[in-house]
């Protein structure tokens, strides 16, 4: 079909025609898929593929895809083939995330819902999944409420709570770098709970909050916040930002020479952010929730090799989150011998992940009454370069999640099961 008008340029009609064809093609494709996969089990992933969390979102997707293939190779879920349906939730628009969740549940009739990287979006999706009674796994949205005050019987979480991350890193920071901390905190659910977790964990060790700034999600220029931080004269500046915001903030801090005057640190660090930083800005003390270089831990090397073959890069914590999330669905159905959401959620209470899925020194398990996965946390320092090209983090301490997680009562989770 030609889209060229008689004038030689692209005419409006041509463009419209082209747009119409593209639109029609998109409308048509789901029917084709549906016809082919009528009796397969469907897992809906509603996660960011665009915006500031596109990179972690895509890595979670890679992990999900690997798990789907492994499950299908082992005979699927309850003998049926498994299919992953992916929707872009955007990075920060709760309205879109909820709309996509409803589309997956009502339109695609998924059996499981996964998502979201953004805590606020994860909470919004959890309301929908709870209303529809669908088993929902949150791979990587950290705010405490997901498995705390806003917990639901059907919502399980793979990544850590912000409270656990704060508790894991606090003692190292106080011991090694000082007690006065300044906070650069993203202004939404995740940032708020992470900061309050750190303030609490720091105070328990005699630390004090020297000040802090709330920064809008998607901030590009951190210079004014860094000026504020420096003038408060803290021992440590804590960067609680995530994704692109983390890269922007750290890069500017190092350009300002702040790393030479005080210590830069934070709770959660991700390989995605370290890879996006120039070597001189790969610094500071952090927590990684999973790390690829763990000699001696069974099956980790195999997992690293498979992901490397597919993507050319090592897996990150996000890849592992996605991988575990999909496997959680399969484990739940297998143990419950049913696709009934209540039966599966009950089957997951206290369930320990097998080593080839857990991929940690101490087997992670879903804590009963809270639906929170409790695994190991890796405390250490970012490094400009390591033994391998992607080895940008030196683990100094492995903290057992079970030792630092607040109790189910402290988490504020009061679960009500359907009658």
């Amino acid at each position, binding site marked *: 079909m030609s889209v060229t*008008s008689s*004038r030689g*340029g*692209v*005419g*409006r009609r041509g463009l419209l025609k082209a747009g119409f064809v593209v639109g029609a093609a998109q409308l048509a494709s789901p029917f084709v898929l549906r016809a082919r996969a009528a009796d397969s089990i469907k897992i809906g992933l509603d996660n960011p*593929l*665009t*915006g*500031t969390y*596109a*990179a972690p*979102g*895509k890595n979670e997707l890679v992990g999900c895809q690997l798990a789907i293939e492994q499950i299908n190779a082992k005979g699927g879920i309850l003998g049926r083939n498994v299919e992953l349906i992916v929707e872009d939730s955007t990075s920060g628009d709760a309205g879109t995330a909820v709309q996509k969740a409803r589309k997956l549940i009502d339109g695609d009739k998924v059996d499981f819902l996964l998502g979201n990287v953004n805590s606020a979006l994860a909470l919004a999706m959890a309301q929908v999944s709870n209303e529809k009674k669908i088993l929902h796994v949150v791979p990587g949205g950290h705010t405490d409420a997901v498995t705390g005050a806003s917990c639901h019987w059907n919502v399980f979480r793979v990544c850590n709570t912000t409270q656990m991350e704060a508790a894991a890193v606090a003692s190292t920071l106080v011991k090694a770098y000082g007690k006065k901390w300044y906070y650069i905190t993203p*202004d939404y659910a995740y940032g708020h709970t992470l900061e309050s977790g750190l303030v609490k964990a720091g105070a328990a060790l005699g630390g004090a909050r020297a000040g802090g*700034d*709330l*920064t*809008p999600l*998607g*901030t*590009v*220029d951190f*210079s*004014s*916040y*860094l*000026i*504020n931080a*420096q*003038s408060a004269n803290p021992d440590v500046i804590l960067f609680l930002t995530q994704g*692109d915001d983390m*890269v*922007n903030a750290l*890069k*500017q801090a*190092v*350009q*300002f*020479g*702040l790393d030479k*005057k005080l210590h830069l640190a934070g709770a959660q660090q991700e390989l*995605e*952010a370290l*890879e*996006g*930083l*120039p*070597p*001189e800005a790969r610094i500071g003390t952090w927590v990684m929730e999973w790390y690829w270089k763990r000699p001696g831990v069974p099956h980790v090397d195999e997992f690293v090799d498979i992901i490397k073959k597919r993507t050319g890069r090592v897996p990150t914590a996000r890849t592992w989150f996605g991988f575990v999330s999909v496997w959680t669905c399969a484990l739940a159905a297998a143990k419950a011998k049913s696709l009934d959401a209540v039966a599966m959620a009950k089957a997951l209470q206290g369930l320990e992940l097998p080593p080839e899925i857990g991929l940690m020194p101490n087997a992670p398990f879903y804590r009963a009454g809270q639906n929170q996965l409790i695994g190991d946390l890796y405390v250490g320092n970012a490094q400009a370069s390591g033994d391998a090209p992607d080895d940008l983090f030196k683990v100094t301490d492995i903290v057992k999640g079970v030792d630092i997680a607040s109790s189910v009562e402290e988490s504020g989770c009061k679960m009500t099961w359907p009658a």
Partner: protein
Amino acid sequence: MTQLIFFNVLNGLIVGAFYALMALGLSLILNLSGVINFAHGGFLALGAYLAYTLMPYTGFWGALIVAPILTAFVGLAVERVMIRPLYGRDPLYGLLLTFGLAYIFEDVTRLIWGAQSVPFQVPGWLTTPLSNQFFFLTGYRVFMILIVAVAVGGLFFVLTYSRLGMRIRAGTRDLDTVSTLGVNVRVLRSLNFGIGIYIAGLAGVLAAGLLGLSPTIGSMLIMPSFVAIIVGGLGSLLGTLLGGLLIGLASGLTAVFFPSATEAVIYVMMGLVLLVRPRGLLGEEGRVH
């Protein structure tokens, strides 16, 4: 406290100068062609990523020169193929087209270079603070201000004294008359668009040295440029410069007293200007149709 305010004012002006640079290209295109170029951020990102790709071969300085030129060529092609047929139509067509293009640019960038930030490294000697006290004055930021000054100065020189500049200025006021006088308006618009996109590419390379380079860099930086134009006034390049500096300043001052509102304050400012003086501070009456 006084020092904190002083630092933030100075820092705000630096950031504002950068906003102004982005906004200048946007303003040029808007003034002559009446196209509200929402894809400006996409061109900015393209310039930055081209520089990132070129750097292993050309070094930072080579990339700083070549990448904006390549971006301008892409801009010329886009103008020729997609934007030219929309001249003379309702500005909404151009807006919708470039709005869609912005998404396409972002996704194509993601497809080619990946969703993850890439490490964009500038020469080490540029990224160290010039003085211990004024730690936010790094060599790179001073260099950026110099580039902004040169770009603004160069643009004013071209617009004021060159034949091309005079035609662009005349075309901004009355394109039909300029056309009747025998000036090839198509070429004029193309060149003007090319210059605007060149500035976007330049701003992109500079931004990548300062910030992380990810596909969202364009969409994150584009809004302040629009605000700078509206505050400064349509039709006035001097106004755009002023608008950029003012929103940088407002954002810097807000950071002292109410840090979480640094982003919101520029939109509040835009709202106030639209209420009190809809044509913008230095804008010409009647430019807003």
